[in-house]
């Protein structure tokens, strides 16, 4: 009986499968935008890639929202520019009270959101209030912690009142999230924008006109934009999670540009550059790749050991060898393109002789025939934890291991997941690890705050330096200071102390990379690390 049925059954299965494929295929009838984009012909439409879906593009929320797309749609009251200069943006001017606790912003007139609604003090207040509904979530940013209330002074004027003076207020307001402004029609019921969003409506030069989750997002120019319109009409962002695929898609011409930190490997960048067929560029330093030597470890509590370890590193050779010169050797914690940073410190140069002298002086002796230094029967052995998904950290870790081996320090290296590495940092459970400062526009105040405030790992790493209390006091003072001269003086003192203490060992300055089709011109980097680069492209 069953046998008889089988002859009819197989064709049915085949038909069913064919139908299923057809139906499923029809579920996605539209081809991804610009699959055949011809980059040499149409600079008015550009196709770029990003590693993950851009999310709902909510200005007040975090992952899965992506910073660069948030920066395309929404704008700040003040903008961050080269060297940390803050300029008027949606606010045309501002006034800071003498006690540093009140900030009054005069808003620019005739600004409209992409849906045509007006930008005014009422909508600014509504945005601030929505952000403050989730104050603790945003409290990683200093302004969110101290912002007490917002008041509408008149239709074009808004006043922010802080619980205590906090000088980086303007700098924090210039960051991409959360202090940017959503149009009225975008607010969900109850105004809890952290949880939901009705529509991504901003005042920025771009607006989303098409979105297919995990596939692509199409941005077109905002017709109501108040500023100079971008030169290109349309930016299509294709979601390509794999960096090698990104390179292949670019080589084929399906992408016009690849930008962003880590968007392609440094090897791929050098290889594309070497062909001479494409435009390539490196940004100014946007952050520093550091090593953190945890002074709460008995062996690393001694400044001489920390200095020895820094003298034992041939940074130039490491940076050139591993990043192919894409990154730049770092002699101080911050490059000089941050506000208040104009450090003239003596670089800790590469010298194995100095390194060994410091270690001998600290009591770590190398016995004849031994390769590892010892003191009181203990070996000078340390562990480096690195993020195993970052190929540069692994290779750099191995280079450091070899370099310190030459001065009699044994370094064990262990790769862990990023989230595990972060947890170990936060808990201060490490000897040595790579650490990255927040970069522009968050520093220098975020860096020094991390040195003072526990639970970021950096304060824990500095816990045994002799002047920790004094340093914390200075940090507290500078963040609340209202006097520019005093602020600059304090910053110089704090950063000099950090440099001399050598808990944070700067290795290289990180730069952003971009590769683009030569049909595009005026490809420049934004001043802020997390902003988008599309406005000026021709």
């Amino acid at each position, binding site marked *: 009986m069953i*046998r008889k049925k089988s002859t009819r059954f197989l064709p049915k*299965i085949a038909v069913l499968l064919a139908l299923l494929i057809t139906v499923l295929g029809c579920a996605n009838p539209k081809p991804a935008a610009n699959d055949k984009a011809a980059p040499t012909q149409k600079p008015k439409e550009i196709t770029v890639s990003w590693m993950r879906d851009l999310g709902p593009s909510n200005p007040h929320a975090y992952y899965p929202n992506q910073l660069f797309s948030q920066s395309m749609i929404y704008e700040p009251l003040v903008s961050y520019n080269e060297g940390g200069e803050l300029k008027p943006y949606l606010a045309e001017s501002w006034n800071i009270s003498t006690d540093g606790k009140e900030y009054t912003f005069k808003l620019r007139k005739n600004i409209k959101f992409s849906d045509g609604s007006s930008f005014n003090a009422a909508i600014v207040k509504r945005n601030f209030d929505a952000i403050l509904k989730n104050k603790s979530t945003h409290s990683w940013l200093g302004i969110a912690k101290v912002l007490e209330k917002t008041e509408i002074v008149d239709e074009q004027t808004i006043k922010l009142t802080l619980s205590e003076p906090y000088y980086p207020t303007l700098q924090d307001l210039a960051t991409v999230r959360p202090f940017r402004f959503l149009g009225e029609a975008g607010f969900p019921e109850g105004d809890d924008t952290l949880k939901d969003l009705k529509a991504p409506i901003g005042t920025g030069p771009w607006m989303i006109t098409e979105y297919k989750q995990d596939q692509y997002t199409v941005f077109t120019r905002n017709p109501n934009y108040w500023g100079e319109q971008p030169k290109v009409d349309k930016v299509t962002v294709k979601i*390509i999670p794999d960096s090698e695929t990104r390179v292949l*898609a670019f080589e084929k011409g399906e992408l016009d540009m690849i930008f962003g930190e880590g968007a392609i490997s440094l090897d791929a960048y050098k290889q594309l550059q070497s062909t001479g067929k494409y435009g390539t560029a490196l940004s100014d330093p946007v952050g520093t790749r550091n090593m953190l030597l945890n002074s709460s470890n008995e062996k690393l509590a001694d400044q001489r050991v920390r200095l020895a370890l820094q003298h034992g590193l041939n940074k130039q050779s490491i940076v050139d060898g591993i990043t192919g010169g894409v990154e730049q050797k770092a002699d101080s914690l911050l490059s000089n393109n941050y506000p208040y940073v104009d450090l003239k410190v003596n670089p800790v140069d590469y010298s194995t002789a100095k390194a060994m002298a410091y270690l001998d002086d600290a009591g770590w002796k190398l016995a004849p025939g031994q390769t590892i230094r010892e003191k009181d029967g203990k070996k000078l052995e340390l562990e480096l934890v690195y993020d195993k998904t970052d190929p540069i950290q692994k290779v750099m870790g191995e280079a450091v291991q070899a370099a310190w081996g030459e001065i009699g320090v044994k370094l064990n290296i262990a790769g862990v997941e990023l989230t595990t590495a972060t947890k170990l940092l936060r808990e201060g459970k490490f000897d040595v690890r790579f650490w990255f400062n927040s970069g522009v526009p968050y520093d220098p105040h975020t860096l020094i705050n991390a040195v003072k405030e526990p639970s970021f790992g950096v304060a824990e790493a500095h816990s045994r330096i002799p002047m920790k209390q004094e340093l914390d006091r200075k940090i507290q003072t500078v963040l609340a200071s209202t006097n520019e001269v005093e602020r600059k003086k304090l910053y110089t003192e704090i950063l000099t102390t950090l440099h001399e203490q050598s808990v944070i060992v700067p290795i290289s300055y990180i730069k952003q990379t971009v590769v683009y089709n030569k049909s595009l011109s005026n490809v420049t980097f934004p001043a802020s690390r997390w902003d988008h680069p599309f406005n000026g492209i021709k």
Partner: protein
Amino acid sequence: MELSSYIGKRLLAIIPLVIFATLLTFILIQLSPVDPAEAYFSASHIQPTEELLAEKRHELGLDQPLYVQYLHSLAQIARLDFGTSYLSNKPVWDEVTLRLPATLQLAFTSIILTIIVSIGLGYLSAVYSHSWVDYFSKALSFFGASIPQFWLGYLLIFFFAVQLDWLPVNGMGSWKHLVLPSLTLSLALIAVYSRLLRASILEQLQEVYVLYARTRGIHEKVIMLKHVMKIAISPVITGLGMNFGKLLTGTIIVEQVFSWPGIGRYFIEAIFNRDIPVVQCYVLLAACAFLLCNLIVDIVQMYMDPRISLKGRTDS
């Protein structure tokens, strides 16, 4: 026993297995040193303070005792509610069903490609054993079985998309987008099943019934297609059926390389970010997919080979 009752029993047996799978997943996630609240902030580029972490843990219910957390998720699953993603704040089921069609499309295409090519190649290399077809099939199977999938994906993109410009590099949309990822997924299966079918056919050709058929003067093609293939294909169906479940859950690398917007990619991000509700839902789906595929293969086998009795299966 009635077939419907057999199927019913098999479907019921899925429940304890699924519960076991969710328990195992829950335990494994707890063994991870990273808690989901930390992972959330890490993904959001936020350096959290202790207070912020504590608040997030409370919001996600992670400050509850472990057994409460597990029972809570189990109760939700029983109501077919897979909870809310820690990261996107959207219902997990919505997120999964949005991506599932893409993965199903890729898996179906790959399995059909595998069936067509494996049967064709296996048949020809058995009939023309030790000919160039056989050697080609052998070389292909060595290649397919040994090359890592991601590497094969890059090679195919390089030749067919970049060099020859025949197909798109990545993405989803037209049939052209399906070709390279399906081929990448299929090749390893074709490598195995074409050789399995060849061996199975050659084995059947040694059987007495083939000799009788030949002495009765039945045409060779009839012997092959109507008798030998029917039996020889049985292990291939079993293997492919089981592999369909694997394809549904194992397209992760291919989805990553080809930017295919399926659940594999979503799952990988969920694992890295400790998005527990998503991981639980995925494991549950995977377990169900494997068990259902197993059941379907058994039923198809019974239809195709009457020697496999329902009674025997029930007893075993």
